[in-house]
């Protein structure tokens, strides 16, 4: 048995509150159950424990992390610990002054989400007028000399505009464009039938991206995350469970994967009760899918088992009810037909937008 590696990357979900209603949000469906948010000093302790554990990069995320008034203090603390700091934001609450403050706090890099290249489509999917705010935020972040990643989640409703998306990224002069297909877990799983693209859409988009990548190489890095429902083998989810990533949720729950929270039968320790290092090395939920002993066939004897680690645990659970099953997107899975069935049954159907807890439930955030 190989020793457990130390984590490289911490996803710090500071809050689940968000002004946007993206129907593929990675936050839990039952947002009402998770209202608590840790106070500044607890987050600072988490950062310090993460740095001691070996974390190199921190992603401040949410929800919308800009809703936390202590964001600057947390970035400053992270930088003092020599952590590389990212902000993942919807950017509807950010102007130039915001980015200047983030710059002086020591923030290293900014990732801004865009839902679609067409303002009306973007605003419809986000559930809020946000396109112009995002455009201005990208400009403000560039003014402050941040490296900017524009993140566009791809699905049936925007995939045919992938060429225009690339052109917009060039026009907005971002450094990186992340084109990531929806991962069908959480909210996206609920909306799967309405979001799944067609095979023709996916293949056309692949050709467009390959061409654009060759043309834009000098000015724009394009990252294209392919949709695993259309692949032969599953993705190497998280580079293996409990290997390099950990997520700390707003209330302090520590998760191997941000989407794992609502899988029944998993218990997540809380950093308010247990030291982060003890959770990483000892907690049963982190140990559960390390190594290969948990695997069943066809993974157990598969020569790709150390390449894709059996795929995504959350997806295995959502599709089969068994979290230890082979990820059904693998063509070798005995229930791969579940994926083919989902592809056949996808339609441009009704979308359930992410809903917020009632306003009255907002926790008080100390200044």
């Amino acid at each position, binding site marked *: 048995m190989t020793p457990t590696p130390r984590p490289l990357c911490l996803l710090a979900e500071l809050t689940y509150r968000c002004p946007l209603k993206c129907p593929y949000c990675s936050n839990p469906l039952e947002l009402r159950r998770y209202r608590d948010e840790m106070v500044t000093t607890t987050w600072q302790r988490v950062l310090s424990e993460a740095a*001691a554990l*070996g974390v190199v990069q921190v992603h401040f995320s949410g929800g919308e992390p800009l809703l936390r008034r202590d964001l600057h203090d947390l970035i400053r603390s992270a930088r003092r610990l020599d952590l590389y700091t990212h902000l993942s934001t919807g950017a509807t609450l950010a102007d130039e002054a915001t980015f200047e403050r983030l710059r002086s706090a020591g923030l290293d890099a900014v990732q801004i989400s865009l839902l679609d290249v067409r303002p009306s489509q973007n605003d419809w999917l986000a559930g809020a007028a946000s396109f112009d705010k995002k455009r201005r935020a990208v400009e403000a972040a560039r003014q402050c000399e941040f490296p900017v990643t524009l993140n566009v989640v791809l699905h049936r409703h925007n995939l045919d505009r992938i060429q225009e998306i690339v052109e917009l990224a060039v026009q907005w002069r971002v450094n990186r464009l992340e084109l990531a297909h929806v991962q069908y877990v959480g909210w996206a799983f609920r909306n799967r039938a309405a979001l799944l693209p067609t095979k023709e859409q996916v293949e056309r988009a692949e050709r467009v991206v390959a061409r654009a990548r060759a043309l834009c190489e000098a000015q724009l890095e394009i990252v294209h995350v392919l949709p695993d429902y259309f692949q032969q083998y599953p993705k190497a989810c998280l580079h293996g469970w409990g290997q390099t990533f950990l997520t700390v949720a707003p209330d302090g729950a520590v998760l191997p994967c941000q989407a794992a929270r609502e899988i029944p039968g998993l218990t997540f320790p809380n950093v308010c009760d247990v030291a982060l290092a003890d959770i990483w090395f000892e907690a049963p939920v982190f140990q559960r899918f390390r190594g290969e002993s948990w695997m069943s066939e066809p993974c157990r004897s598969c020569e790709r088992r150390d390449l894709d680690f059996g795929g995504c645990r959350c997806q295995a659970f959502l599709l089969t009810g068994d979290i230890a099953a082979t990820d059904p997107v693998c063509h070798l899975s005995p229930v791969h037909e579940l994926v083919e069935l989902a592809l056949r049954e996808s339609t441009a159907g009704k979308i359930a937008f992410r809903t917020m807890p009632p306003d009255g439930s907002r926790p008080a955030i100390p200044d």
Partner: protein
Amino acid sequence: MSGNLSRPLLVRHARLRWDDRRGQHQLVFPEGMLVLNESGAAIVRLCDGRTVAELVAALSQSFSDVPLAGDVTVFLDRLAQKGLLRDANT
């Protein structure tokens, strides 16, 4: 981005750090990092806008087994291709 920078300068968003836990030099940038050996870290530290010739000369003062100028150029090209260096003249 191609190589052949006359005055290589580390871009603002790339950071060289020492990882005490793992005992390694790391060059960290958005969504990624490179693990560097001693001479790699020494070269990156010298990417402050001086010329490549000056960089190689300074390097020879720190290392008895001086990396060859050709090796240094290959290494700098690799970093430039990843967008981690720019030319201080531009």
